[in-house]
C-alpha cells in the first residue's frame, strides 16, 4: 500500500499539471479492481472510438466458457489519437487478446484496458512509454 502511494502520487501530480483538462468523467479506481488483472481473447465486435472514453466490445468466453460481450474501456479519442490510434486501427472481426483490470460489478463484463494485441499482425498497445490513458 505504502509503496504504491509513493509511486503513484508524484506521477499523478505531474500528469495533472501537464494535461490541463484531465478527464473528470469517473474514477477508474472506483470502477475497476486495479489490483487485479484479467485476460480475454476473442473477436472484436465494435470499436467505439469516442470521447470521453473509447470502448472496445469483444466477444469472448467468461471463466465458465460462456460467450460474453465484454466492454473494454480505453482512452478518449483525443488522447488515443496522440498515441497513434485512430478510428480505423481496429476493425470488427479482428481477433484480439486484451489484458486489463476487471470491473467491480462482475455482471457488467467490463475491463479497463491495460494491454491489447491483435493476433493477426501483432499490433499492440500498452507496453510502450506513454501508452496509458486517464
Amino acid at each position, binding site marked *: *500500500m*505504502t509503496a504504491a*502511494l509513493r509511486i503513484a*502520487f508524484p506521477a499523478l501530480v505531474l500528469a495533472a499539471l501537464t494535461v490541463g483538462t484531465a478527464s473528470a468523467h469517473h474514477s477508474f479506481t472506483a470502477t475497476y479492481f486495479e489490483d487485479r488483472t484479467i485476460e480475454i481473447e476473442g473477436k472484436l465486435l465494435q470499436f467505439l472510438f469516442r470521447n470521453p472514453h473509447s470502448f472496445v466490445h469483444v466477444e469472448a468466453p467468461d471463466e465458465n466458457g460462456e460467450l460474453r460481450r465484454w466492454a473494454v474501456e480505453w482512452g478518449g479519442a483525443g488522447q488515443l489519437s496522440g498515441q497513434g490510434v485512430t478510428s480505423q486501427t481496429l476493425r470488427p472481426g479482428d481477433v484480439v487478446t486484451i489484458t486489463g483490470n476487471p470491473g467491480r460489478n462482475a455482471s457488467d463484463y467490463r475491463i479497463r484496458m491495460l494491454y491489447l494485441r491483435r493476433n493477426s499482425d501483432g499490433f499492440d498497445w500498452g507496453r510502450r512509454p506513454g501508452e496509458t490513458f486517464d
Partner: protein
Amino acid sequence: MIPIRPTARFPSAHAATPDDRFALPDAEPCRTRASRTRASAAAAALAIAALSLVPAVGDAQRAPAPPSARASAPIDLTGYWVSVVTEDWRHRMATPRKGDYESVPLSAEGRRVADQWDLERDNAAGLECKAFGVGGIMRQPGRLHIAWENDDTLRIDFDAGSQTRLLHFDPVANPPPDERTWQGYSVAEWERPPAPSNAPVRAPIGNSTGPVAAGGGGRGLRGGPPPPSTISDGGALKVVTTGFREGYLRKNGVPYSADATITEYFHRLPEHPNGDVWLLVVTIVEDPLYLTEPFYTSTHFKREPNGDKWNPTPCRTAPPPS
C-alpha cells in the same frame, strides 16, 4: 526619527528565490542557516523601509504621522475563528500514514525526508511542535484568536499546539529575533483597493431599479438578501514569514525547510446571507529544498461569537493508522 511604515508591496511571491527577493545588492553571502535568516529578515525590513522612504523624502518634515496599522485596517480580523475542515480531511483530522504526501509537490529530497518520518523519534527529541510551526499550523484543526498586540502588531493565538504568531506591521520597530522559532518572523501589510474616485456613474442597464452597488449591481438572491456590502471593503492582509525552524506541512512529516518563504493573504469574506462570517487564509509555501513549485493552500475559518470553545492543547500528533 522619521516614521516608517511599510507601504511598499513586497515583490511577487512567485518571483525569484526568497533570498533574492529580500537581499540588498551588497549583502554578504550567508554562511549558516541561522545567520542567513537574520540577514534576510533584517534585509527585508531595511528594504521595506527604503522603499517606503523614497516617495516620502520631500515631505518628511511636514507629513503627519500615518495612522497605525490598527487604525488603518481595511478589514477587521480580530475575534475567535474556528477551522472548518472540508478539504484534506484525512490529512488534517487524522494523521496519515508515512509516505502519504498526496497533493504536495514534493521534490525528491522532500520525499526522501518525508519517508523517514518517525513520530516517536520526534517526540523523544522534543520536536513535538514540528507539525505546529508556521508552515503547518493553519492546517491544524483548531481555533484562532486574533487580537491587536499593539497598534502595529497583530497577534494570532492558536489553541492547537498553544502557538502564537506576531505579525509586524512595523518591522523596524520590531526587528527579527536572533533565534529561529517555530512561528518565525512575520512582516505584515494591508492591501486594499484604490480609493474611490469621481468616476462617471454607471448608466442604468436592464431592469435594474434599485441603488447601484459599488462596481455594479448583482442583487437578487433567491431565498435571502444579498450579502451586505458594508462588512468588508475587500481589503486583505499580506504576511511574509521567514526565520522559522524546519517543520512539517502535514502531520505525517511532509517537510518544509528553514529556507522556505511563506506568504499568506488573510481575507474576511463578505458576510454570508445566513450571517456567517468567514476568514480565508491563502498560503503560498516556496521551498527550494523540498518543493518543486509553490505549494498553494487556502484554509477557511468561521467566526465564533466568543472564546467559549477555546481549548488550548499542547503540541501533540496522534499516531498514524497501524
